[in-house]
């Protein structure tokens, strides 16, 4: 059953206050509600080098009340597979192994170990929090950065290539659960993590996680930025259960009621797009529209 109000979310916090992550961090809000959806006493988290490692703190203290294994940057899928195998070998049942990695650690350097784990059907959940760049090391370009974004490695022309369609690559492994989410829609995020927890096999959730310092927008606008991404269909909320596609939450309403905003509305509030040209905005709009119509069509087909 879908969660309908904030009061239905568990009260207990699994991240103690006073963390190292920036004020208004989209990842932090994502992690906060994801842990509420899991059974933290029975969860083991695998984390590569990223803002998530920073959030997890410096030895001998961590703010997070969940067992976490830090793994090398490229190895998240392999590390999680090892934990799953270790639990099995030692007869420890009932644990959920959840990998949490950034887009750099997922789309780029971690793609081989992730693909290996998905191909083996490893019984785990993989959450990619997509802040669209290598944020921990100072906003370098990743293959998840959108076209037109200035990063510290694309400072002059801004990024020339569109975002990689990672979700299609993940889907091609034909795993039982693939979903997208956003911290601006915590109830939808919470429900998806909870649902994924109950499914056996490999599960993948990609969360669009706005990052104020990396994207260049005011801290207070974190929630609004995530909502605008959904309203413009730059980020589309959906889930695919055993191959059946369905739009959810704000994206479902957008498909039913219309009123899609333009990409120009989205880029104007972020300084990372300060160099974007009219032509690039047009190209980004076409890229976004093409995906949106595909999703609407799949949603129709999924229902019939």
């Amino acid at each position, binding site marked *: 059953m879908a969660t309908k*109000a*904030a*009061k239905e*979310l568990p*009260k207990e*916090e699994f*991240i*103690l*206050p*006073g*963390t*190292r*992550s*920036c*004020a*208004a*961090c*989209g990842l*932090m*809000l994502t992690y*906060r509600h994801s842990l509420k959806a899991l059974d933290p006493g029975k969860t083991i988290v695998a984390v590569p080098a990223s803002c998530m490692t920073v959030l*997890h*703190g*410096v*030895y*001998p*203290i*961590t*703010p*997070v*009340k969940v067992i976490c294994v830090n793994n090398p940057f490229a190895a998240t899928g392999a590390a999680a597979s090892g934990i799953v195998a270790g639990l099995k070998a030692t007869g420890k049942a009932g644990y959920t192994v959840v990998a949490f990695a950034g887009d750099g650690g997922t789309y780029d350097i971690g793609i081989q170990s992730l693909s290996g784990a998905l191909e083996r059907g490893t019984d785990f959940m993989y959450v990619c929090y997509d802040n669209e760049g290598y944020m921990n090391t100072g906003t370098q370009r990743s293959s998840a950065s959108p076209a037109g974004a200035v990063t510290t490695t694309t400072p002059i022309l801004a990024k020339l290539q569109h975002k990689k369609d990672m979700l299609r690559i993940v889907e091609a492994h034909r795993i039982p659960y693939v979903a997208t989410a956003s*911290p601006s829609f*915590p109830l939808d995020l919470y429900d998806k993590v909870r649902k994924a927890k109950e499914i056996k096999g490999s599960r993948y959730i990609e969360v669009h996680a706005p990052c104020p310092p990396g994207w260049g927008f*005011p*801290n*207070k*606008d*974190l*929630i*609004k930025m995530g909502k605008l991404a959904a309203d413009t269909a730059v980020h589309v909320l959906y889930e695919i259960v055993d191959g059946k596609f369905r739009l959810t939450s704000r994206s479902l309403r957008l498909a039913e009621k219309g009123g899609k905003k333009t990409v120009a509305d989205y880029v104007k509030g972020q300084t990372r797009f300060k160099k974007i040209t009219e032509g690039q905005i047009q190209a980004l709009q076409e890229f976004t529209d093409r995906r949106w119509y595909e999703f609407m069509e799949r949603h129709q087909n999924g229902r019939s």
Partner: protein
Amino acid sequence: MAEKNRETVVAVSKPAAGEAGRTGDWRSHTPRIDHEKCSQQESCLLCWMYCPDGVISREFPLEIDVEYCKGCGICAEECPRKAITMVQGRQSQGDPDEGH
């Protein structure tokens, strides 16, 4: 011959608040709740839900843990009743920067 040492040594962190210190010190502005304006209803709690750092209480009247609130302003921005305002400064007792 000595026994082989089979003990595995693993560095394990323990959970505690304030891992990064008193993050309230990062603030330039501080949220202030007008309890009259707040709905004081469980049916809202949007500020609680959207605070990335989880420093707003769930019980009414709401309390903000100013020792750790980073002053991002999300709660003030998202409150549908405009019951939270961001006031200048850290607003913490004995703050040397504020000349108390």
